[in-house]
């Protein structure tokens, strides 16, 4: 009896603790969009819209990570096909901070290139070089980690334009 009472009290105590209100803290998510310019027209994709093109996952190191992470995202080739740019010889990729590079076709035909929107199952953050990041399979394809190749790892990607 006593033991039953004791157990009830203990259960009640636990229940009381679980029922306490959580500390709600205001938080912000970065807005992100990848705009693709094709035939003079812009098409913008949010990470969710990008994911509609079909997602892939790869687990790899990056030049900035000490342990591998699982990246999920859409393949650049799929995005280019969806926007009618599958045949371009090069593209110009611009980041939110106006960092820009010209990427030759060889880069995405010779290497697996994922436009990652999630890392380790969570949405990609700007502080983790998201929210939209060009990721290569560095674990399988070490050349992509070379210093002179690192310029292709565009983070905070914002725009893609074909290069004539």
């Amino acid at each position, binding site marked *: 009896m006593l033991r039953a009472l004791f157990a009830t009290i203990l259960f009640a105590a636990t229940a009381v603790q679980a029922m306490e209100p959580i500390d709600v*803290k*205001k*938080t*912000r998510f*970065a*807005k992100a969009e990848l705009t693709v310019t094709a035939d003079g027209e812009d098409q913008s994709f949010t990470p969710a819209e990008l994911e509609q093109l079909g997602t892939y996952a790869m687990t790899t190191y990056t*030049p*900035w990570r000490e342990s591998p992470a699982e990246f999920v995202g859409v393949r650049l080739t799929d995005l280019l096909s969806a926007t009618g740019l599958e045949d371009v010889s090069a593209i110009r990729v611009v980041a*939110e*901070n106006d*960092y820009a590079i010209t990427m030759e076709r060889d880069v995405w035909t010779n290497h697996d290139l994922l436009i990652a929107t999630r890392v380790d199952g969570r949405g990609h*953050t*700007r*502080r983790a*070089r998201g929210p939209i990041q060009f990721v290569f399979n560095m674990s399988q394809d070490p050349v992509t980690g070379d*210093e002179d190749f690192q310029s292709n790892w565009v*983070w*905070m990607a914002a725009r893609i334009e074909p290069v004539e």
Partner: protein
Amino acid sequence: MQHRFASLTFVLIVGIVLISLIGGSFILLQYRALSDQEGASKEVARMRNGVVAILDVVRTRDALQEVAAAGTLEGAAGDELFESVDYLFVRADTLRQALGEQPDEGGQDLLARLDKLITGVDDVVNGSFADFQNKQIDLAQATQRAIGAISNFYDDQKQRHVTAVVRQEKLLQRLVMTTIGLILVFVAISTVAILLWRSEKMARIRRHEAEIRAHRLAYFDPLTELPNRACFMEQAPLTLAENDGPALFLIDLDEFKGINDTYGHHIGDRLLNLTAQRCQEIFRSENGLVARLGGDEFAAIMPSCEGAGCLMEFSARLIETLSEAIQHEGIEVHPRASVGIATPSQLDGELPPTLSTMMRAADYALYKAKAEGRGTSRIYDADMADALARRREMKLAMPHALDRGEFFLEFQPQVHIQTGELHGFEALVRWRRDGAIVPPGMFIEVAEEDGFITRLDQWVFCHALKEARVWNQVSANSISVSVNLSARNFRTPDIVDQIAQAIGGSGVPAELITLEITESVLIDDWDSTLAILQRLSQIGVKIALDDFGTGYSSLSYLRRLNVDEVKIDRAFVIDIETSDRTRMMLDALVDIVGSMSMQLTIEGIETEGQARILSDLGGHVGQGFLFSRPVDRRESLHIINQGPHFWTRGPKQRLSLSA
């Protein structure tokens, strides 16, 4: 010399190895130093990050100011602050990685300032505006300090970059200079090595050429370019040993000295050259070995020739080839060669078939060939070996024979053909040995060869004079005496004095004495022979040219020699009864000799017919079995005692000689 080059080569190789090691290590070190200068590119990356970081900080500062102006953290200004601090966070993270695990002081300061700013903004961005306002001054200060730190960091990186670039340039320069220097050193060493190698090669070539020249001089005859005697003596035993049934040839040009003296050495040399060529051609086709042993003597080995028939055929071809006339400078010479051949089978175990025995045998065969008329060949055989032994033995025996009185004289009467009167006697030497008469042709030949002939001639001369004195004492008419004088005597310096002395002591008038000489006296030394003949004429003795017509330039000698008598060989007499040609020739000779006031003596008259013809032709003096065989001194006295008339023309008119 070779040693010096070897050591130089060794030094060069060691030098090249050392320089390669030192130079290679130096270049490797510099290359590694250059590779270690990664800073240059890293600093550029850091500088870029620095620039971007300033922009990010400025953006954050602007966002802070906008929030302050807006008076709220909600809305666009708050979103901008939120976004800008995200950028700053990523920038700080990137810089942290770029600076590595142990950043320097400036780097640490920079990271600390950025972290402080980020933390400050993070603290307020989701809070209330009042909190923001409280911290606004701190945030402005943090912003300012962050910009200052970035600025310092940028300057520092720029300085490092410049230093690194300068150092890289220097390293690169040194690397290039070292490489060029090393290449130059290699080129220099290679040049020296090539020059040394070349000079050593040239020296080796010169040495080799000198050796070849020396070898040629030692082993080849410079005139004919044939192997010389030394070479032959070295090669021949091998050739003899290596082949079955070889044959050794000794080849000798007949009368070469005469040709040399008559036409000059250039013709002689030309003949030798041509003979060498001909020998070589003919023996080359048989894979033979040819050499010039010296003078006009050649030797050859034919590796294989079965049977004497083959050898005779081959040697006949050889002699024929060597006898072909040569034309040189308008002069035509008809050489002749004699060949002596020896084969191991012909030695037949009697002699061991070494080169020297083969040479001796071939030499003897050559001697026989020459003795038997020249221009022919002989193969050495056992008979020759016997003859050789006999000759040797005879040679040794002759001096003792003279002392023991084994030599004696016989006298063959000489008759005036026209009158039948006795003209005189030819003294002939005989050798009775162990009760038998040695054929004169045999021992005189040996005596000639040996030189003993001069002593024998002297003995004959003295004894003939003694007889002549007796003849002339008992005879009312003058009886002349003819004595043979060998060519060998013409090499004796005081021969004329010896003869004069002998004549003086004999009491025989010089004009009754005839010295018979043969053409062979004229071969050795023409001038001195002529001088001796002239002095003999002055003494008063008569000179007869014996065996006229058997040599090969008899008429030429006749033209140049001042002789008193010409003795025609028996060969001209044998067919005088049957051959018109011989008769015509003798007729002409009688004319020639007569018109030159010389006496013509004909030898070997054996028949009345011959005597009649010779008498009709006008011959002067005759000698032969028709008149008398050679007789001893007693018989000669008997003949003289019979009176001056010795022979009457007609059948069986000869005086009977009773003992």
